[in-house]
């Protein structure tokens, strides 16, 4: 309909205006030296620094290192947390045996594990991956548990009526029924792992995007900080989008 197209046009226009305003206010504050905004790099400086930096080998190796760390940690968390969550959600006895301990550890934010992580692992690589792992682990675990708990009892009963044994109930009801929630957990876990990564690299790292913005700060290359932040945001958003896309493929019955 015309009215709809008109409306969508306005929305797109407003989006540009909105982002334009954000950038504009930033520039105005910097150029007018409001409070300490004089210290903050301006857009042209950031663009210049970005042009130099994005094509440098430093940037590529930082980005690759960060991405690999996050993927390793997130993958390990998924491999451990999904089966664990399925078992906890499905089996009351198993849940009694493991959930209290996990509940005890859960309120400790991943960042608080940084010193312990460094202590546990002889090298930086191991501790950074461990901290990201802790970040990704709990969202995936909790969403998996919830996913199993939310499966209607009817579906368990129907499967058993149809002659499914324990193994088949697990395969055809528990795993598939919890899938939508697991995917939500995987996306959330990726977000938090990415956040933990930045912190871990900043505090303990030797390279990676988090370390890069920290080094830029120490070396007073201020525009590079913002370039790094944009890169972190873009890569993180890209990975979340991949998970959502993959998740939609895995759960074709979920209507949008």
């Amino acid at each position, binding site marked *: 309909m015309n009215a709809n197209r008109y409306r969508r046009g306005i929305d797109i226009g407003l989006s540009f205006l909105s982002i334009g305003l954000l950038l504009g206010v930033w520039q105005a504050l910097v150029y007018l030296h409001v409070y300490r905004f004089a210290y903050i790099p301006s857009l042209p400086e950031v663009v210049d620094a970005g042009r130099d930096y994005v094509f440098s080998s430093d940037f590529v190796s930082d980005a690759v290192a960060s991405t690999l760390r996050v993927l390793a940690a997130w993958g390990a968390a998924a491999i451990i947390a999904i089966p664990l969550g399925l078992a906890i959600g499905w089996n009351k006895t198993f849940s009694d045996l493991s959930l209290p301990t996990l509940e005890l550890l859960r309120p400790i934010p991943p960042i608080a594990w940084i010193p312990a992580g460094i202590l546990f692992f002889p090298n930086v690589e191991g501790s950074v991956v461990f901290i990201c792992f802790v970040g990704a682990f709990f969202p995936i675990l909790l969403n998996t548990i919830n996913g199993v708990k939310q499966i209607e009892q009817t579906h368990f009963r129907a499967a058993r009526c149809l002659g499914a044994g324990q193994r088949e109930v697990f395969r055809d009801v528990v795993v*598939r029924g919890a899938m939508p929630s697991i995917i939500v957990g995987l996306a959330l876990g990726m977000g938090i792992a990415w956040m933990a990564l930045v912190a871990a690299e900043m505090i303990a790292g030797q390279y990676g995007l988090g370390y890069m913005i920290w080094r830029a700060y120490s070396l007073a290359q201020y525009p590079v900080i913002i370039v790094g932040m944009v890169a972190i945001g873009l890569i993180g958003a890209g990975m979340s989008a991949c998970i959502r896309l993959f998740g939609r493929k895995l759960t074709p019955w979920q209507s949008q």
Partner: protein
Amino acid sequence: MNASGVTIRHVTKKYVTRRSGEVLALDDCSIVIRPNEFFVLVGPSGCGKTTLLNIVAGFDALTFGDVSVGNDLIAAPGVISDPGPDRMVVFQHGGLFPWMTVLENVCYGPVVQKQMTRAVARDHARGMLARVGLREIEERYPGEMSSGMRRRVEIIRALIGHPKVLLMDEPFRALDALNKSVVQEFLLRLFDTHACTIFFITHDLREALFLGDRVGVMTTRPGRVKTIVDVTLARPRSTRMLDSRDFLGLKAQLTEEVHEEALKAFAAGEREAAR
């Protein structure tokens, strides 16, 4: 065919809740369902109809009495037998797996019981779906169909394994009048052509009389069998019979019996809410 009767003898069920202590849900219920019979149980909500059905299905334990299907003992105090394909249930809120297509749902039983290979089961299921006019929707997910359609698929899924008894727990409750009447006729035609024993629970007296061979009325909690009414209408049934004098007489009789219990249950419910 392998349809069997169901014998429910002196079944009593007590359970303990934190709020009201020990509750007597079923009190000495005895029903004998004959092989190939369509037995309907009506009664006010909360009277324990579903509990009784769950005991027969093997979802729930009983406190006293016993249940057998054919010659097999199903439940006795302290023991229950696992639910299985001999006692298939059609659920109140729909039991189709939302993550499987219609065809996968219908095939599931034969494949998981290793009665048929997947390919054979698919052919078989396709044939069955085609016979009842559901061929076109076999690749759809349950979330993409109307609730009336889901009900029909679920009935087909239940019947494909030739259960000894089909247990139906208010399966048409959420349907509107039009869909309900279509699915009722659908079930009647299947009952006429497939030998099976059906244990059917409903609130709807019209539905009870239209479908059943006998209708049992349950009292409000604790659930007891109050009366069992023989439905003297011939088969195959048609909607035209709903105007007959026989039908109206039976309906008046049942209405009175059930209404009396409903009023009791309603008063009990208000008392509960006031606490």
